[in-house]
């Protein structure tokens, strides 16, 4: 109780500093753009979201791009989770070939740039396997994020107490049944937070698929900029959209987490 006034003052000082920094930044941007002779045209931006014609609302390019970004993110998220889980299980398996395959995949993916992987898939693999650019984009992102997801899954699985395995085994459960009913349900719950940040990385990394002319949010933004030179407005807007999406994503996971954690209330404590 004695320390409270001090804390109060500290936090006010913090907030004030933060505000001053923000104002300073805004001033810098304003002054910079003024010196450039930049003409702001914020009014044009809403038109790229929606246009009203004949009493009907039409989706503009930014909304189209947003839909594509969400589609790509959703598909590659599911695929990445699957790849990650399988890779983690392979790495932990007793099979030498399985472990080697998993390590080979992990090292290849983690030690090459995502951009190169996207180009490789699109320019090399896609013609060979007859893949569209959307598929190539989804696959590239899924393989890339899958490698990181697998490390997260592996950590989650390894963190489960050995006694859980022994209890499952001593009841006659097979390795598969033990994973499915005992180990993975516990592991997945404990890795939900790091998996969320991986999902957010995936969302952000999806902007790179604009390089193979997939018309996602970023690509639409580039197209608008090329057409209209609304450079500042468009990139500010895009950044804000990505920020909003990422925040929504973590909010969503937090809700899921809370729901997960409460079958019959305290359920069990997260390790």
């Amino acid at each position, binding site marked *: 109780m004695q320390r409270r006034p001090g804390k109060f003052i500290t936090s006010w000082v913090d907030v004030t500093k933060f505000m001053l920094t923000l104002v300073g930044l805004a001033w810098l941007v304003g002054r910079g753009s003024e010196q450039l002779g930049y003409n702001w045209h914020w009014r044009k931006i809403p038109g790229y979201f929606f246009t009203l014609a004949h009493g009907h609302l039409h989706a503009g390019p930014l909304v189209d791009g947003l839909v594509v970004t969400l589609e790509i993110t959703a598909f590659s998220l599911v695929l990445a989770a699957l790849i990650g889980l399988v890779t983690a299980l392979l790495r932990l398996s007793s099979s030498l070939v399985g472990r080697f395959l998993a390590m080979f995949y992990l090292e290849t993916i983690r030690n090459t740039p995502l951009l190169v992987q996207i180009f490789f898939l699109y320019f090399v693999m896609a013609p060979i396997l007859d893949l569209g650019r959307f598929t190539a984009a989804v696959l590239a992102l899924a393989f890339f994020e899958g490698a990181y997801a697998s490390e997260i899954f592996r950590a989650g699985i390894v963190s489960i107490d050995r006694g859980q395995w022994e209890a499952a*085994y001593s009841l006659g459960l097979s390795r598969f049944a033990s994973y499915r009913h005992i180990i993975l349900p516990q592991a997945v719950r404990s890795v939900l937070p790091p998996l969320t940040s991986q999902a957010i990385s995936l969302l952000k990394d999806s902007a790179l698929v604009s390089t193979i002319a997939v018309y996602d949010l970023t690509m639409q933004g580039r197209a608008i900029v090329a057409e209209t030179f609304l450079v500042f407005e468009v990139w500010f807007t895009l950044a804000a959209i990505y920020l909003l999406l990422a925040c929504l994503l973590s909010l969503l996971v937090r809700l899921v987490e809370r729901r997960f954690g409460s079958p019959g209330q305290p359920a069990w404590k997260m390790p």
Partner: protein
Amino acid sequence: MNREGQGDDIIIASNLVKTFPGPVRALDDFSVTVRRGEVLVIVGPSGSGKSTFLRCLNGLEEVDSGTIIIDGLPLDDNEKHRLEIRREVGMVFQSFNLFPHLNVLENVSLAQRLVRGKSRARAREFSMELLARVGLADKAASFPAELSGGQQQRVAIARALAMMPRVMLFDEATSALDPEMIGEVLDVMRQLAEDGMTMVVVTHEMGFALEVSDRVLFMEQGRVIEEGAPEQFFNTPARARTRAFLRQIL
């Protein structure tokens, strides 16, 4: 239920050797036979190989050499045999090892459904019967974290019994419990013994050994030092090493 040529011996362990890196000889040419319905208590200083022996009996540890036959089934490299033996051998751990993400009823029912292929309703019925037997029918919907240690261990016993095992192994089942909870778990074990269950019990509870067991076996450094009926073992131990051990713990 006797299998051909099996006679009355349900566990036949012969010449078991198990070493751990170190090198530690946890089991050193260890042989023991357990009769059907017998309660065998194994005592000994820590590190003497008691727990290792139990864990070898249901294949949680693999022996370096020697043979284990449980109710006529050899425990060998055959994965099917191993699974079958684990189904017939129940195990209770020092640290309970309940499944924290499942409630008590699900903890007891899971293996019945997965391994025995019972319907949800039939598994539930039998689980409730077992929970009533260990005095926890009212806790069916609770999660392990909401139970006391003694209650958790009783659930763990019910979970093992749910497989209708022919042998129950108790690996220091009361060692992690607060003193006032040891009694409730020992009561369940005593009841089980009276019902004729074959039990191999590693414990430090000498009162339980004296009262409930048919035979006490003292082991050290992976070998049998002495074994005998409980009265004889505790009152007139033959070996000096046994006497020294008993003096220390009694």
